[in-house]
């Protein structure tokens, strides 16, 4: 049976390893790269190589950065008494885009999942505790995802933080989409919003 020439096959195989790319998409992308000319192919190759040469982990929070300390951590205007714990750097960006939070972050690198062999040792928890000791914190915001694993991770961290001393530990609220009518929200969302209801003060 006729097969593709070596370099094309190699490119298809490499593309197939990317998340969300199947054999057919990989083939389509490979031929697109082939037919779009050498200049664009080099630009793509350079961009891929550059993320590994020029991007590293921020030595404080674990966010991806061009410098040893990331933009957030080196920004003097940030509130250093509040720390927000996220599962990964994508979540950090989502919170930054919202523009509501002006404190510091800490990237955990995932959530607890014994089934996948991820215990406390597999996450950046000791780094978190070191930072908590260093910074004089008023509050730690736990912003792990609202899944069983994300909730359990938040619970684990909360227990750990409370053991170490008096600090306010909060969890990101979950519930109704903003601006939507109650009767448009799905059952699961409404039920969870009711469970997570908050006290109103005068």
């Amino acid at each position, binding site marked *: 049976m006729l097969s593709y020439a070596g370099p094309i096959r190699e490119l298809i195989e490499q593309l197939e390893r990317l998340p969300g790319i199947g054999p057919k998409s990989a083939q389509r992308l490979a031929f697109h790269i082939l037919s779009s000319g050498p200049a664009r192919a080099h630009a793509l190759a350079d961009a891929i190589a550059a993320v590994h040469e020029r991007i590293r982990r921020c030595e404080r929070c674990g966010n991806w950065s061009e410098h040893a300390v990331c933009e957030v951590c080196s920004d003097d205007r940030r509130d250093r008494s509040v720390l927000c714990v996220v599962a990964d750097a994508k979540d950090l960006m989502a919170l930054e885009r919202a523009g509501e939070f002006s404190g510091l972050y800490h990237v955990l690198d995932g959530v*607890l999942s*014994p089934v996948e062999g991820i215990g*406390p040792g597999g996450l950046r928890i000791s780094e978190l505790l070191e930072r908590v000791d260093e910074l004089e914190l008023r509050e730690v915001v736990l912003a792990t995802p609202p*899944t069983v694993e994300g*909730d*359990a991770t938040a*619970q*684990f961290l909360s227990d750990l933080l409370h053991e170490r001393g008096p600090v306010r530990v909060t969890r990101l609220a979950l519930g109704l989409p903003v601006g939507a009518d109650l009767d448009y929200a799905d*059952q*699961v969302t409404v039920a969870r919003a009711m469970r997570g209801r908050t006290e109103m003060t005068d």
Partner: protein
Amino acid sequence: MYLQSLTLENFRCYERAELEFRPGLNVILGPNASGKTTLLEAIYLLATTTTPRGGRTRTAVRHGQPWGRVSGRFAVQGRELTLRATLGDPSGERSSARTLEVDGREVASAREIIGRIQAILFWVGELDVVKGAPADRRRFLNAALGQMSARYLDDLQRYRRALRQRNEVLKSLGRRESDGHVLGPWTHALVESGVPVTLDRAAYLAALAPEAAALHQRLGVGAEQLVVRYEPSVEPADADGELADEFYRRLEETHRGEVDRGSTQVGPHRDDMLLEIDGVDLRRFGSQGQQRTAALALKLAQARVALARTEQQPILLLDDCLSELDPDRGAAMLDLSRDHEQMIVTSACCPEHLADRVADAHLIGTGGEPASCGGCATEA
């Protein structure tokens, strides 16, 4: 809601068939192995996107064909709704594909279909709810509650994940690979999701039990009293007790055993449902007839509770019930159709003693042709 018409293409033994249905009682008549159950299966497939036989829906495609299709036109509160499920791929490329359509528009997920049409099917496999293992009775509860409440399904899924993760930690504790403090958050997750699952099941069975007893009375002969009761793995010792506190207490109490066995010993995954007639445990000691009548009463009660909760009349699909019930019970069962918007039953033969009961019914042959009761009775 009721089914108006059903079309099958390359579905099990059918190459192509079109059947018309009416509100009220519909009786599908046909000899054994003529495809009566398949028609009910097709209706069930449209309502739930799954087959009651279990396994992949792909297996329902007619032997040797690359694809099969079921379409149904329903009337829901005065409006028409067309559901269509295509199994396999008519172009022959992706044989495992499954396409679901609502009113001609393809939908991405089964979730967009589930719940639009409520169908309750009683067939031979249903006897397991009485004589099967506790897992069979939990499956009944999960399916019944899940059809009504997406919130219940969410809690159940969270519970199952928490249980899997917690059991993994228990195994590592047994191997002395981790210490006790990593168990805490998973215990918390287990209790948090397990409590609403338990409470929902308790409330559901509290509503189901009197309905099932009343229906059993109508179907049964004599004064046999059916008792249905929840047997939760965790329940507060007294009425004022908090379920969550009790769950934590029982987990602590069984901690040694759970580490030894590497699995959580208490919780909704250990629930059961008691079924009793005059003090006799039907699960173990019921006669075939008693078990059958009890299973039928449970199914019919499920429809009643669904109606009360969702204000939607589920379509009742009853497979081959008449042949096994004695004349009085058979007549009582058909009389129940008066309480439902639509009831579709199958029968190999339309028994003579029920002639007056089916006089006003819509009789259909398995190929969709009109069937008559008289011809069948003389044949017998």
